[in-house]
């Protein structure tokens, strides 16, 4: 049911994807403002505008003229180091912007140069990459369409979720009613003998045993799963406000999602990057943000409640799925950016994992790792197979996840 959503999200980023493909084909990385810069700039965007109203950090228009490239590279990579080294400009900037540290960015020299070129160009990628990009009008049209579809889809999704939850809730009642019927029938059959026709008993017993069995089976498979789990968090943190309204990239907070097993929950320090300044929100006022500030001041981390839990015997790695397989976060987590309180939308069962592994194509030709699979490459070339899905390279093996 939610299967359409990731697709839409992809279309949402259509510009980016088209550009990215162009970039991969051109293979030209060293020069300037590639789409990668645009992607990297998502992190900067949280605090910096190029032009327009000043955000948490200074505007970046003309920054390449103001400072030397060398200084910029150092500062972007690890601003605190530059400040601690006593660099006068850095110290002055730090004081001027309320001593809010800029988090370090582990980028290469080339990547930073690229980013600077992107900023210099006013936040646009180079013409050679932009060729394939649609015009503004087209984008707007497409966006409108996407928004509409998404809205509709979300509505449907919400209804479905509601239905499924209701259905789940009814199991208990059905179970008890059926059980009562069964007992009554058995009692009648053996003791009271009110109903004379025996076949009524037989049918009722058969039907109720079947229903009880079915419920038992369903409940048993659901053991340990937490679909639609939506606990109340210690801080009323809304992904809708952060990710959708303020367009903060998922990666700004969940920064290790491309690097490691765990996506990472942001440290209080990261929250404070913005909330040092942003002290009240439209919906909750100062109440919820105050909890974050309290955590910062008392030095006690916020104890979030974990929603997406996998059993101990399952190994899951975010980097494999996000960085290597290029999956969108929403594929597994649903439209988190539309949620005020996060809910687990999929059951995260093994069947669900395998289903996806069987139909999802791997980045077979674009990732050099798969060069080892010579035979599959040949078959792909000769048209023997149309695509390479995860299960064809061992994605359905037990020891991909269980070890």
């Amino acid at each position, binding site marked *: 049911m939610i299967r359409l959503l990731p697709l839409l999200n992809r279309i949402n980023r259509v510009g980016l994807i088209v550009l990215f493909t162009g970039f991969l084909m051109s293979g030209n990385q060293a020069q300037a403002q590639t789409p990668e810069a645009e992607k990297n700039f998502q992190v900067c965007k949280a605090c910096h505008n190029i032009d327009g109203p000043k955000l948490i950090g200074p505007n970046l228009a003309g920054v390449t003229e103001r400072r030397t490239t060398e200084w910029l590279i150092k500062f972007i990579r*690890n601003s605190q180091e530059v400040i601690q080294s006593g660099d006068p400009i850095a110290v002055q900037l730090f004081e001027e912007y309320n001593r809010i540290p800029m988090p*370090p960015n582990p980028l290469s020299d080339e990547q930073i140069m690229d980013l600077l070129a992107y900023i210099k160009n006013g936040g646009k990628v180079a013409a050679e990459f932009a060729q394939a990009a649609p015009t503004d009008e087209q984008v707007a049209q497409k966006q409108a369409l996407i928004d509409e579809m998404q809205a509709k889809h979300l509505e449907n999704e919400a209804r479905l979720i509601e239905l499924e939850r209701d259905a789940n809730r009814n199991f*208990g009642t059905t*179970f008890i009613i059926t059980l009562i019927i069964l007992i009554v029938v058995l009692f009648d059959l053996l003791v009271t003998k009110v109903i004379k026709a025996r076949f009524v008993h037989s049918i009722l017993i058969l039907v109720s045993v079947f229903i009880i069995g079915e*419920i*038992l089976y369903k*409940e*048993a498979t659901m*053991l*340990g799963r937490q679909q639609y*789990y939506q*606990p109340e968090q210690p801080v009323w943190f809304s992904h809708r406000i952060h990710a959708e309204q303020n367009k903060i990239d998922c990666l700004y907070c969940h920064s*290790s999602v*491309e*690097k*490691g*097993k*765990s996506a*990472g*929950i*942001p*440290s*209080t*320090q*990261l929250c404070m990057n913005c909330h040092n300044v942003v002290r009240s929100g439209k919906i909750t006022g100062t109440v919820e943000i105050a909890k974050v500030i309290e*955590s910062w001041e008392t*030095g*006690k*981390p*916020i*104890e*979030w*409640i*974990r929603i997406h*839990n996998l*059993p*101990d*015997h399952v*190994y899951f*790695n975010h*980097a*494999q799925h996000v*960085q*290597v397989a290029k999956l969108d976060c929403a594929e597994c987590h649903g439209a988190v950016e539309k949620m005020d309180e996060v809910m687990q939308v999929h059951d995260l069962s093994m069947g669900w994992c395998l289903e996806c592994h069987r139909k999802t194509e791997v980045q077979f030709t674009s*990732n*050099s*790792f*798969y060069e*080892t*699979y010579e*035979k*599959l490459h040949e078959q792909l070339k000769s048209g023997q197979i149309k695509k390479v899905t995860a299960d*064809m*390279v*061992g994605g359905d*093996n*037990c*020891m991909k996840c*269980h*070890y």
Partner: protein
Amino acid sequence: MEKKYYKSLEELRIAPDEFQNGEMLGDKKSLLLMEQELKQSTGPNRRDFLKLFGFTVASAAVAASCEQPVRKAIPFLIQPEEVTPGKANYYASTFYDGNDYCSILVKVRDGRPIKIEGNTLSAVTGGGTSARTQASVLDLYDNARYREPLNQGQETSWEQIDAEIMNKLGEISGRGGRIVLLSPTLISPSTKAAVDLFKNRYPGTELVQYDTTSASAILKANELSFGKAFIPAYHFDKADVIIGFDADFLGTWLSPVEFTKQYVSKRKLHEGNKAMSRHIHFESGMSLTGSNADKRIVIKPSQQKAYVAQLLLALSGSAAENPEIIKIAEELSTAKGRSLVVSNSQDAETQLMINAINELLGNYGNTLLTDVHLKVRQADDAAMTKLTEEMAQGAVDGIILYDVNPSYDFPDREKWVAGLEKTSLKITFNSVKSETSETANYVCPDHHYLESWNDFEVKTGHYSLAQPAIRHIFNTRQAQESLLKWAGSEKDFRTFIQEYWQQNIYQTDLTGFVSFWNKCVHDGVYVSEKKETPVPALDISAASAIASTNSVIVADDSYQLDLYYNVSVGSGKHANNPWLQELPDPVTKICWDNYAAISQKLADEMGLEDESLITINKLGPFPVVIQPGQESRTVSVALGYGREKGGKSAVGVGVNAYPLMGFAHGSRQLQTIGASIEKVNGKFRLARTQTHHSMEGRQIVRETTLAAYLDNPKSGNEIRDEIKKHLKTIYPKKEYAGLHWGMAIDLNSCIGCNACIVACSAENNVPVVGKEQVLMAREMHWIRIDRYYTGDPENPELIRQPVMCQHCDNAPCENVCPVAATTHSDEGINQMAYNRCIGTRYCNNNCPYKVRRFNFFDYTNADALPGNLYDTEEMTVDLRKLVLNPDVTTRAKGVIEKCSFCIQRIQDKKLKAKIENRPLADGEVITACAQACPSQAIVFGNLNDKESKVSLMFADERNYHVLEELHVLPSVGYLTKVKNTNV
């Protein structure tokens, strides 16, 4: 002619048909009998229970609708830049426990050190490790560690204890009293500088070094030979002929990891190498080194001196009587400058003769370097004996015990303890409870080495650093910092080391000290050009004189005693380490005890059998093990057991044999002549991993001699061609699209040091089961090292073979699993899904290699039912559990487990390659066992890549697969063992 291999003396004696006879099962009940008993017994049995239980659980589950526990996700307050949750960091550090040295990398996951790996940058240990190094990470989470500083047994604060101690130290040194700092050999230059500062502040302080495993006689002999007490740097990698006199240089002698690496580099025959060193070993008991020798000569401890003397005489042109010695002298003369003669004798005169032999052979400057010194084990035994005397007379006012435990390991314990009682001020830095530290006035617990900064100079100019991999867990303080503090310096030890290095080690270069320092911390090692001052040429006349008067080999008939350190527990310092205690001895395959190894002859004489009891010099009782290859009237006993204090796994395991040590010629003696041995009634069961896993009468191990190999590389492996002819199948050959993992093991390189077993346990959360379970053949090690004897039981040859899951392409285990819990992966790995396993053990029965392990209990506390827990060694307390590898599931009761080819390491490296958008390189994925191996006997890689190292080894003509005739197509290959025997 086919050699006959046997695993124990019983097996050699008993005809095979007797083995099948039920009587041989001894007190073990046959299964049939047990079943009959079960049928006769009335009342509910296990099956009824299970039925009831299943129903209860199912109904309870529905009724309670199973509330899920609320799990928290707590982020960092301030995330450190280098930490990515779920990703391991590696920090270079150094293991040094006062005896052995190893340069290492510490794997840290989410702030916890969980594994030790060898540091390949080290010029000394070169990426190798030992079993003890691997196990040392568990000592960090030792329950017996001190958690607070103690004043007379009461917890106190550092400020208070500092004030009191400084007051007392000042008072003693003020009135001209004596303070002794007793430590094992210090190889840390900065620590020595800190001690000097301390000495300046408190005049009258003396540093006494006390090594449990001492090289006192070598030091003394070199002082006589060269005017300087030192241990030279040995180069087994340059020696074509190696003669060892009782020196277990592959296991415990001086620097075993380094020597193993050197030794094996001369024994590898693949990669185009066609020559091999020749190793002849003289010893009384069967040691790790002796069992690897090409020729092993059994001598009495009392005869060593005479043999050495004869060898010296033979080499200097005089006539020797012993035909063996004459032959050896001839061999040595053909390898002048390319040979090495070593001895572990604790007699300086013998060592003097060894020096002379090496001088005559021109080995100095080639295989023995006098301008590079080995800095470990510098203690003079006489100094400790003198100290004990003085303490007994009450001449010492204060003693600081740094990482020593003489109340346990000093032979004359009574005298030492009495002396200690007379000493008014007793301060200890011991971080773990011990016999000595428990009697101290002040306990100032030291950090574990993984929590400390430190520096080391293990050989002249070979420096290395240790850095903390975790913040100290308990309220402890590094010993050096305590010394500095008491000396009036407020410096932390890191700054102190840094300053010391800047002044003494750093040589001005363009990049500056900071980058030099950062590089050293990053690499963990630094080699400078430093050389020792040259020594005068050796005069052999004194040695010749000794030789001429000592050259008669006397057939002494008295009982003799041969004490030794084993590769697991060693000196006893690490006795509270269950990983080490459960490690089977490389020769006897016994764990959880020490024992008296005796010869068959002696056993017959005294009417002893395995597990009978004897006392030695009234000490004991020791259980007896009849050891093939044991000198007829010599008893060998391992030291390091029988601890009285120091934690659950240390106390009460084995008997303390240190009181059996003698003192003569200014050194403590491991070997003594004229022991009294008495039989005691009763028996003591020893946990052996020996008689299980037997592979009856088939060519499991294959070996040949060097000459035969040079003649025909297939020699010893001829049967393989014959087997291959018969391999036919109706099934299509399984093909692997991308990767096909395989492992090749060079039997010539494997020396049986056991490092792989501990590394595997650490990497894969392999549980410790305890002695009782081992007695029932339930040990859980995923990799075992089988050893077989062959030839004359009085002096057999020994051959070892590491066996783990062979990951067969036609795996017999996979077909029989009723629930498909074990299946084959697309990369050739035989997979095991624990959560799917229901514990029928069909796979275990159908495995021809017997490498599958069953969890008879919940050993790891992974089970939902608390009653299933079986943990005799406190391995499941919270502190110990910190060592678990979070990437590997802990297994619950009732499931099978086995070697997974370190799948988590494979997946990790694959992911790294994918993220970096490149193919996987050969040698990138290394299993834990291969990483730990000091001799690189294990090679892991992709068999589909025909250029990979493992493929080349598979293509070698020495390669064979165990039980290949079954056509199970194993992914593990072995290279035949080649012995250099027929010179």
